[in-house]
């Protein structure tokens, strides 16, 4: 069933239709929220807020346009709002298996260190660039769609993605051997 039809049914009160939309976009929404809020719990709360806000505002959704970008705009705004309201929380606990502690014996340890490195690289990026590169590379949205989501010109999105990728590629290059093993 098309998203537009599910949205129409959800707006009419069909909980199952809403559940299908959540099921389809939950992972994406959580990643976008996580790009804003480094804490997983806060990100999930923001993603939930985004879904509920979308449900309340389904009457304003234009069914002739794709549902994903419309929803992601709401989720990104919900995450940004939450970040502003919250005091800065610590990011997920840093693994104690750092390279300085000696060689990591297993893939789990390597994965943690790899994740740390990528999270640190993401943390160096301004929020909008983080969201842009996640929407572009992780979720597959076009530059134009991302521009609509973020409310900025397309050229700004291209620039944001360009600069974000440079940072991420540098971080990935440092772990190239481990990356192919883990990812």
């Amino acid at each position, binding site marked *: 069933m098309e998203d537009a039809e599910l949205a129409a049914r959800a707006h009419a*009160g069909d*909980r199952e239709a*809403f*559940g299908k939309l*959540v*099921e389809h976009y*939950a*992972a994406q929404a*959580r*990643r976008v929220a*996580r*790009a804003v809020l480094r804490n*997983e719990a806060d*990100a*999930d709360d923001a*993603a*939930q807020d985004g*879904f*509920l806000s979308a*449900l*309340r*505002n389904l*009457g304003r959704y234009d069914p002739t346009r794709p549902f994903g970008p419309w929803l992601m705009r709401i989720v990104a705004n919900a995450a940004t709002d939450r970040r502003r309201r919250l005091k800065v929380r610590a990011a997920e606990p840093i693994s104690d298996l750092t390279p300085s502690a000696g060689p990591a014996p297993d893939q789990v340890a390597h*994965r943690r260190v790899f*994740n740390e490195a*990528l*999270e640190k690289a*993401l943390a160096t990026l301004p929020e909008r660039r983080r969201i842009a*590169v*996640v929407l*572009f*590379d*992780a979720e*597959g949205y076009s*530059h134009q769609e991302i521009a609509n989501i973020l409310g900025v010109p397309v050229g700004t999105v*291209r620039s944001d*993605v*360009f600069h974000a*990728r*440079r940072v*991420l*590629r540098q971080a*990935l*290059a440092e772990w*190239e051997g481990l*990356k192919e093993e*883990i*990812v």
Partner: protein
Amino acid sequence: MKERSEFDHRPDPQIRRALRTVLSGSDHAAFVKHVVARAADSSTSAPAGDWWEVLSGWVRPGLAASVALTAAATIWLAGSLREPESGTAIADALLTIGEGVVPAAFLITTEPPDADAVLELVLENR
């Protein structure tokens, strides 16, 4: 990692995998269930429909009503403030009568004019 041009605008599958690995949340099913449950709770506790939409539907008629009331109040107030002028309006009318045709009855009588007659004259000349 394959070298890709800095200007390559196609999504990078390696960055995609890395971001999804780092940013993906755990327990997808629990998350979905929780969202749907919260949606059900909010729909049962709140009135049917988007109450913001209901309120916004009342904004224009409410504004129109308040404007009409304000206008009516202004007109009434202006009218009540003008009432003391009615006395001067009568005086002006009396003076005007003198400039116009004065009934002969007022000219030939030695008695002071009857108030009712004067009033009647004023009203006729309005």
